[in-house]
């Protein structure tokens, strides 16, 4: 299974985020003002701030600890700061949010 159903779109406030726990660490799932979703590691490359708690504006998020700004699309830090966060594919189907688990799931021996 590569796409995991993590919840309904309405579980995430518009211009907000929720966290999903995975074997590869916490993933922040963002919802923009116009109902797009994005997923990225919930850890700022600066000092580990929880990006899920940042202010979401357009398709960017501002880290709550020291205000670095990241593109939700590419995971790249914007402006003068250098660094990037891992992003993961996520999509909406019939109001449900599906997260691509290929790089997040624990592999088990068959």
């Amino acid at each position, binding site marked *: 299974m590569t796409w*995991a159903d993590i919840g309904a779109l309405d*579980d995430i*406030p518009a211009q907000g985020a929720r966290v999903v726990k995975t074997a590869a660490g916490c993933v922040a799932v963002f919802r*923009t003002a116009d109902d797009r979703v994005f997923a990225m590691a919930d850890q700022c490359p600066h000092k580990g701030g929880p990006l899920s708690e940042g202010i979401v504006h357009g398709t960017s998020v501002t880290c709550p600890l020291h*205000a670095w700004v990241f593109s939700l699309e590419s995971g790249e830090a914007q402006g003068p700061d250098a660094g990037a966060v891992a992003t993961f594919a996520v999509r909406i189907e019939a109001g449900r949010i599906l997260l691509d688990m290929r790089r997040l799931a624990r592999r088990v021996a068959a």
Partner: protein
Amino acid sequence: MKRKLVIIGAGMASGRMLETLLDMAPDAYDVTLFNAEPRGNYNRLMLSPVLSGEKTYEEIVTHDEAWYAARGIETRFGEHVVRIDRARQVVISARGETHYDKLVIATGSAPFILPVQGKDLPGVVTYRDLEDTNAMIAIARPGAKAVVIGGGLLGLEAAAGMAARGAEVVVIHIMGHLMERQLDPSAGYLLQKDLERRGIKVHCRGATKAILGHDRVEAVALDDGTVYGADLVCMAVGIRPEVRLANDAHLEVGRGIVVNDQMTTSDPAIHALGECVEHNRQLFGLVAPLYDQAKVLAATLAGQAAAFRPVQTATKLKVTGVDLFSAGDFAEGPGREDIVFRDPGRGIYKRLVIEGDRLLGAVMYGDTADGAWFFSQIKEGSDISAMRDTLIFGPGFQGAAPADPLAAVAALPPEAEICGCNGVCKGRIVTAIQGGAVTLDAVRASTKASASCGTCTGLVEQVMALTLGGGFKANANPPLCKCTDHTHEDVRRLIKAGAMKSIPAVMQELGWKTAGGCATCRPALNYYLIADWPLDYRDDRQSRFVNERNHANIQKDGTYSVVPRMWGGVTTPAELRAIADAADKYKVAMVKVTGGQRIDLLGVRKEDLPAIWADLNDAGMVSGHAYSKGLRTVKTCVGSEFCRFGTQDSTGLGIKLEKMLWGSWTPAKVKLGVSGCPRNCAEATCKDIGVVCVDSGYEVSVAGAAGMDVRETLPLCKVATEAEVMEAVAAFVQLYRENARYLHRIYKWVDKVGLDWCQAQIADPATRRALCDRFQLSQSIYQVDPWAEHAKPAERAKWAALADLTLEAAE
């Protein structure tokens, strides 16, 4: 021999299909057409003009008796098909069985009905067919009250139609802005304004709780306690494909009846088209793709090859006088960029969404003349790189001027107040300039505008620039952030002068350059709106910094600290026990006495916050707002109750002040101190507001600080009674709330506006009283314990992870 074709549903899709089929292969089939409605095909889209009175039903009929007769079609109108027997290839209706060689299901959709109490009362209608339309026409007349539930395309057309007939209409919409599927918040705001101008009341974020009434509908009650009287309720909250027949016949059904590219269902003898189908997991709610389906199905039935490929759709709201257009995919997304154009003066908003060299989507409001052109660029996937810079100005345009930052000021009416201190309106300033006052000093001398606190200087200069034209150069204060050219002060004043009451309203009216603002402007705007419109505006939690959104201070490791209020620094053994119990129960990392005379529980996990708050609430404690731009602490000393030097009850006064001020939002944090004598053990003279008790009364001083700057307070007033202290402090806090720029502590603001001006406002009894009243009004709404609200059982799940997939395994 002719084969037998049976069609269930005489709607928009099957009507077009029949026309095409009979053109291609007039003699292939004997056709029987069933329709549940007691009539044949008509243009359903045009029900809205029928409702508003701009058209009659007769004008929207597409196929009349003569048309069916001429083509030998057997019409079975008013007759429901109740079952399909696939084994015997017959459909069953009231008048018996009808055999088919080929069957077409074109049953459209059924309106979704909210499962609330009262939904079946007479007077509750949906908006789908002529019966619904006639029911609305029968009720909608001057004086009648109608409530429309649902602020999407259909709901708004119903609302506008009934309003056009004179009814008083309220639209209740669950989301934050109208037509959220087609419009972004800015366009939604303009639409709301237009509808309100026609007398339609719009209630966003309204959840319907029940429809009330005995024999017929009388009112609609919302979750937030609002009740709207209603002679008619129109439910337009969405549609779902009408799939019951297909389900019962065990055809493959997802959300709709599943069809392939040839519009064939899982049974080769049965086809389906229209809103009832699902193609490649997609449903359809607008006619354009249905017409394409109709052509494909006609070809399939005529034995020709054809394949359905869904195309982009465009939406227009059919409300006369409202210009709105949205097409393609205008959501933000990976690699996508926005081009935004706003002309506040003319109420125009346009937004294009671009990816690489392609235009993906467009939203327009106010000026949709170029809609069709943009739509064709989207459909054709044209390379727009060469015209990118001027694309937003439409097909004929080259080298347009950028949006004018003066437009917002230009749009203000003459009576809009520019200078709050001296009550000077725009008209008076313009008259003075036209009368020869061409310098700022001259305007100040003749009108007094900008002559007091000076924060409106930018606006006065803009009025001068507008009146004098190119010759005048306005000052160069830094703008609020990169999203706007306006300064904080100008934004504050324009919000008041233009009565702007939402973030999208401010962004639209003031020509914001980004679609959704940024982390700098959003919290500032949210504060300004709360301070200026306590009754109308609702706090936007997503525009708040993490601490204020989560009502706790975030720590460097992502945990939080919890500080309950300890009024005036006074506590009880019971409170201390409850704090100790909470510290044990939630395994807090450290219990610390703060510099603000209370106790901090550090290292609480986010998911535990609601539970620890509930425990502290149970012991009678509320949030200490140790995280807010709002009232923090009121430090006190022991005062006359215990101390041998105390002159007044400083502890009691501190508690009273804290109980009056807590919960209020301010531009930056506010701290008070109350000392019982000039020895000043509560350090009152380095606080934002300090009270020092003396034999003859109380010395109130303001604008102290002991953080990054250390300042001694400056005297505001000296009064004789506690009541006067309370009034002076409330008035001063309100003065600060109404005038300071976001994130400026009191001392920074007083540096700008001058202590004299503050003293004069507080000294004047009428001004002081009015400020006090406005403060109390705001407190009547905002003085609520946020912990209690978020600790409610229904809220708790939102504080935990959305999902736990740690055990999820890949295959």
